[in-house]
C-alpha cells in the first residue's frame, strides 16, 4: 500500500517548475504510484505565480490539493512559499529557495515585499529546509539548474529510491543539459534540514 503524498511546486513563470514536476511524476510512475497532476497554463505564465500540484497514491481522485492538504511544498521563491503556506498540512514540510523575485506591484511601490518570510515560515513549520538554490546551481556550473537543486532537495525527503530519480532525470531532461542537471540534483539531494 503506497502512502498518499501530496506535493505542491510553486514559483514564478519561467523558473522551471514544470520540468521539475515532470521529473517528479516520471519517478513516481516508476515507483508504481497512481498520479494526478494539475497545472494552469496561459495568462498566468506571463510572470505570474505558477503552481503545479502533484498527487500520488494508490488511487487518486481529484487533481487538486485542498488547503491544509499538502505533505510538501517546494517553493522556488520566498513570496510564493508564503502564499502557498495555507496549503501545507500540519506536520508537512516546506522546502524553500532563499530567493526573492519582487512582483510588479512591489517594483512600482504599490505593495511591500514582506520582510523575514523565512523566519515566519520557520516559526510555523518546524520542518522547513531553506536553500540557496541559485548559489548551489551556480557552483555546479549551471545557474539555470535551480529547479534541479530544489527537486533534488525534495527527492532526498521522499520515500523513492535514488536510482529511480537517475532514470527519471535521464528520461525527462534533454541530453545536452543532462550532466549539469544531474550535478545540480545531486547537490540538492544532499541538503538536510
Amino acid at each position, binding site marked *: 500500500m503506497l502512502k498518499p503524498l501530496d506535493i505542491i511546486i510553486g514559483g514564478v513563470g519561467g523558473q522551471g517548475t514544470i520540468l521539475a514536476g515532470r521529473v517528479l511524476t516520471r519517478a513516481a510512475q516508476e515507483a508504481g504510484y497512481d498520479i*494526478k497532476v494539475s497545472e494552469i*497554463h496561459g495568462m498566468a505564465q506571463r510572470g505570474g505565480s505558477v503552481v503545479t500540484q502533484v498527487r500520488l497514491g494508490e488511487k487518486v481522485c481529484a487533481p487538486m490539493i485542498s488547503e491544509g492538504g499538502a505533505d510538501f511544498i517546494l517553493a522556488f521563491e520566498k513570496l510564493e512559499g508564503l502564499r502557498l503556506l495555507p496549503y501545507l498540512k500540519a506536520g508537512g514540510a516546506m522546502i524553500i529557495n532563499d530567493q526573492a523575485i519582487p512582483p510588479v506591484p512591489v517594483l512600482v511601490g504599490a505593495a511591500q515585499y514582506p520582510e523575514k518570510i523565512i523566519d515566519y515560515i520557520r516559526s510555523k513549520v518546524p520542518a522547513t529546509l531553506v536553500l540557496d538554490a541559485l548559489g548551489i546551481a551556480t557552483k555546479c556550473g549551471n545557474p539555470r539548474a535551480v529547479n534541479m537543486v530544489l527537486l533534488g532537495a525534495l527527492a532526498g525527503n521522499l520515500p523513492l529510491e535514488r536510482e529511480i530519480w537517475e532514470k527519471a532525470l535521464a528520461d525527462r531532461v534533454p541530453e545536452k543539459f543532462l550532466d549539469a542537471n544531474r550535478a545540480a540534483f545531486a547537490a540538492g539531494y544532499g541538503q538536510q534540514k
Partner: protein
Amino acid sequence: MKELLSGNEAIARAAYECGVKVAAAYPGTPSTEILEQFSRYPGVYAEWAPNEKVALEVGIGASLAGVRTLVAMKHVGVNVAADPLLTFAYTGVNGGFVLVSADDPGSHSSQNEQDNRQYARFAKIPLLEPSDSREAGDMVGLALLLSEQYDTPVMLRITTRVAHSQSFVEKREPQPQELRPYCRNPKKYLMLPAFARERRAFIEERLAGLKEYSETTPVNRIEWRDRSAGIITSGISYQYVREALPDVSVLKLGLTWPLPEKLIRSFAEGVKRLLVVEELEPFLEEQVKAMGLAVSGKEYIPSTGELSPGIVAGKMIEAGLLEQQGGPAAGTVPEDAPAVPGRPPVMCPGCPHRGVFYTLRRLKLNVTGDIGCYTLGGLPPLEAMDCCICMGASIGTAHGAEKADPAWAGHAVAVIGDSTFLHSGLTGLLNVVYNRGSSTVLILDNSTTAMTGHQQHPGTGYTLMGKSAPAVDLEALVRALGVKRVRLVNPRDLAEVAEAVKEEVAVREPSVIICRQPCALLDRQSAPAPRVLMEKCTGCKTCLGLGCPAIAIIDKKVSIDSGSCTGCGLCVQVCKTGALAKGGADHA
C-alpha cells in the same frame, strides 16, 4: 502502455487512434494543445483557422466529404462558431464529428466563465463530460460513434482542470477508418426553409433516440454506497465529490444531454436525500427539478468560480452531509501572517507592446482594447486600456463611441493584435471605412499568437503543420479595405509612436498604425542591458511607469536585472536624467 497525459493530450491521442483525419481550431486556453498534439501524428491533417467559425466550417466540410473530424475551441470560441453549429445540428454529419468545447470556470485565462453545456441543449446535440484524461480519450471514441450512429455533431465539453490535469491513459493502436462516400442529398445538407423544417422534425426523433441510449450507456452509472444521500454529478465535479464524500452514493453522468430520466428517477428513489454537485450553472439541477424530484444543489454549491475538493467538503458540511472536523478550518491564515502581495501576470521584459501602452497613457487617450498579451496593458502601472470585451471588439467599439460622441475619435484609439485582427478585426475595420468613421486603429503586430503560446496564423508565413505559407501583407490588406492612411512604426521607438498616434488621431478619417516588432519570446537576440549611471539617478521612478519586471528601485536608485533584461532600450528613452545609458562594449 500507460502514459501520464493531460486531458488535451489524451483527446489528441484518441482522435488519432479513432481515425480522425481532419482537425481544425483557433488557439485558445485551455484548448490549444489539442491541435498542437494532434498535428504531430502521422497521416492526419490539422490546421489553425483564422477564427472558430471558420474552423467549424472546415470541420463541417471534412465531415461532409466523409472523414472523421475534430474541431476544438475555448468556450468563448463557441460563441463565434455558434452560427454554423446551430444549423450543422440540423444537417447532421457524414463522417463522425466531435466539437471539443474547453470551458474555463474561474476565468483563469478568459474574459468570462460561461457554461457551454447550455449550447449542447440549445443546439440539441449530445453532450459528453469527461472527469479525467482517460475518460476524455474514451469519450472522443464514443462521440464519434454516436455522431455516425445518430447523424449528429457531438459536443465534448471539458474544463480547465480536465484539459490541463494529467492522469494515466492506455495507448491503443490506431484504427484507420474508411472514407464514407459522399452522396448528394439536398434535403439533408441544403438548409432552405422547406428542407430545414423536415430536419427540424428529425432532430426531435434523434433526441428521443439519444435519450433512450442515455439510460443504458456505460458512461452514465450509479455507484451505490451509503444511501442516506445521493449525489448526481458530472465532469471534474465527480472527482471532488469522490474525494470529499467517499462513502456517498453517486450517479455519475458522462452523457449529460439528453439526460436519462428513468435512471435519475431510480437513483432518486434509492436515496434518502438527493443533491446535485456541478460547477457553474445549475444545468443538471434544473432538469432534475423539472422532473418533479426534490433535489438541492445551488443553494449550497456556488455557481461562480471553480469548485475544489475543499469547497465541496465545506458546502457538504453546511448541507449536513459531512461532520465538521475539530480544530481551525484548513487553510485559515493566522493573524500574525504577513500580507502577501499579489503577483499578477505582466508583459515580458522587452515586450514590443510596452512602449505603445506607455505612450497611449502619456497621451491620455481613450483606448478600446482587445484580447491577447497586450490586454495586460490595462493593468498598473501602464493602465492604458478602457475596455476589452471579446476578440475583435476594439474596432467596432471605437466606431460606436465615435458615432455617439463625435469628439471621441479625437482623443481615442483602438488597439488590436495581429492574430486578433485576422480573427475578427477585419470586418470591424471595413465597417469604419464604409460608415465614414475616423477611428485610429493600432495593430500591434508581434508576428505570432503570443498569449496562447506562439501559434502560427495567416500572417506568419507558416502553418500548424510546419509548412511555409503565403503571409498576408497587413498594409495591403487594410488598404484594400479602403483605409488610405496606413503607416508602419517601430514600437521600440517611443518618439516615433507618439508622433504617429498624435497625427492620426487628429485626422478626421480612418487610419491604421501598424506597430511591428516580433514578440520578445520569439526574437531572443537581446542587446546588452542598459548601464546605470548611479550618480545621475534621482530615484524619481519614472522608469517604473513602464512596468518592466527587469527594473526595480532599490535603496532609492534604479537597478536593472541583467538576467531578464533584453536590452530593448525603452527605459533609456524614458529616463529624463540620463541615468540609464545604452549598454554594450562600445559604451563601456
